[in-house]
């Protein structure tokens, strides 16, 4: 039943056609599809399809990832206001760019995807100290801290993921709070994430969202 909508929506997103994607959603609503079904049966499968596409098709690009995430987040937010009952959130993530790093693109891609997957995201912004990540995670009861770093020194420095790991260890929080990292340095050295004390990483923002969701479920299952 939803296949045609998913196909049309994906085509629009793949062509980075925001208006086209919104038209598909409006058509679905007009045809009697509920806002809940739009999110769970069109938007989320579409993002999952994009994830699969990234693995098999190297031709997808950063602009597509970014716009996919922005469109998905925007459509989801619109639909949420129309839900009969507030949706149950899967979990909570604290996200930000590491201290000394002012880049925000990768972070925004991840945020867009997470929001559309019903994950509550608290964005601390850019240039965030390790201590602020941990304090926010404790205060907001988040399961994951996501640290974005676009430069080598902000990825490997003590104020980045390594600092977050030290604080979690010091406060005995390593079981309750997981660390994920992303950004260019990790793309060039796939082992770097473990050297900076993170639990996982992803090469792109879209895959990162899926991985974060899995970590949240893992923590909640404890």
């Amino acid at each position, binding site marked *: 039943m939803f296949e045609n909508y998913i196909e049309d929506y994906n085509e629009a997103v793949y062509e*980075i056609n925001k208006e086209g994607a919104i038209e598909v959603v409006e058509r679905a609503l007009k045809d009697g599809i509920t806002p809940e079904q739009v999110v769970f049966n069109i938007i989320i499968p579409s993002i999952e399809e994009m994830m699969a596409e990234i693995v098999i098709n190297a031709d997808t690009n950063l602009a597509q990832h970014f*716009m996919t995430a922005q469109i998905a987040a925007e459509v989801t937010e619109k639909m949420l206001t129309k839900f009969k009952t507030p949706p149950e959130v899967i979990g909570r993530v604290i996200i930000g760019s590491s201290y000394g790093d002012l880049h925000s693109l990768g972070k925004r891609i991840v945020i867009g995807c997470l929001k559309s997957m019903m994950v509550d995201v608290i964005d601390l912004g850019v240039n965030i100290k390790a201590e602020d990540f941990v304090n926010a995670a404790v205060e907001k009861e988040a399961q994951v801290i996501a640290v974005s770093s676009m430069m080598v020194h902000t990825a490997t420095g003590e104020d980045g993921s390594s600092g977050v790991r030290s604080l979690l260890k010091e406060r005995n929080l390593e079981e309750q709070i997981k660390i994920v990292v992303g950004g260019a340095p990790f793309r060039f050295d796939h082992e770097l994430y473990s050297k900076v004390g993170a639990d996982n990483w992803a090469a792109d923002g879209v895959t990162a969202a899926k991985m974060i969701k899995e970590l949240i479920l893992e923590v909640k299952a404890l």
Partner: protein
Amino acid sequence: MTPLEILSATVSGEPAPRVPIFCNVLDQGAGILNMLPEQYFSKGEYVAEGQLKMLKHYGHDNAWSASYVGKEAQLLGCKKILFAKHGVPNVADFVLKSWDDIEKFEIPEDITQHPHWQSTDECLKILHQEVGSTHPICAYVTAATSLPVILMGMDKWIELVIAGPTDLRDLLVKKCSDFVQQQLVAYRAAGANVIIYANPFATTYFIPKKLIVDWSMPWMQHDLKDGVDSIVFYGGMGPINSVTELVIDKLNVNIFYPAPEDDLSESKRFINGKGLTSGVLDDIKMIHWTEEQTRNEVKRIMALGKPGGHFLFGTGFMPLDIPEANIIAMLDAAFEYGRN
């Protein structure tokens, strides 16, 4: 032969005793002079001294002018650079806070009169005088279609490129392209003889191929309308193999600096003797490699790239965290396996 003669012979396919060896040590100069980066980059004479000392210490082929990416932003009005104690300087003030600022945004009439150009000019003059006849002296110029990233941030620029009004997008790129043309003239006049022309927005890692062909390419032609002499095409962080043939065909550029992710055999095949390509070592991995791993990677790159000539060995922009022993191991191996 001098390093400059070796490079020139390699580009034209003439015999040379070894492969040219580029080691892009920029930020390391501050440590060599026992300075913090902010002080080091404040004067052209410091950077020149750092570069000359590193040439002597490591023995690689290329020197760099006073460079960090934010320098271009400063020439265009950026008021604040975040200097890390142990890392790359970072733009901390976006000149364009929103799309509304594009209309009134202006480029300098003459960048050579700009206060932020003076340290670059001073550095290049010293390098030109000391090693200009023997060594490649590099400068870095960001292409017009990528330059807005350091003026407004990557996310705002992608939104404008992909989903914004095209007239506004192209108004900004036109201003940036005029600035690029000025920079190219100024760098050449000051003594740079290798210009790294960087354009992530001409790679399929960042945008779709169709947009590269229809939009990015015409602007690159505008950037380079005064000629491609000494231009090296570089995709920033993005792989370039998928656009190499297009760049040769449309821009006449024949020197390429791929990303480590690019398949070197494929790069060689695309160049096919029409110019020069480079085997670029993934220097982020060098942070945690052993000396042996570093040597093995150099050996692998040389084995793939050296046959048939038209080949340069190079690095990315070497992070400060790379152990000194690995830099020395890399260069020893490059000179050993790069012999012709």
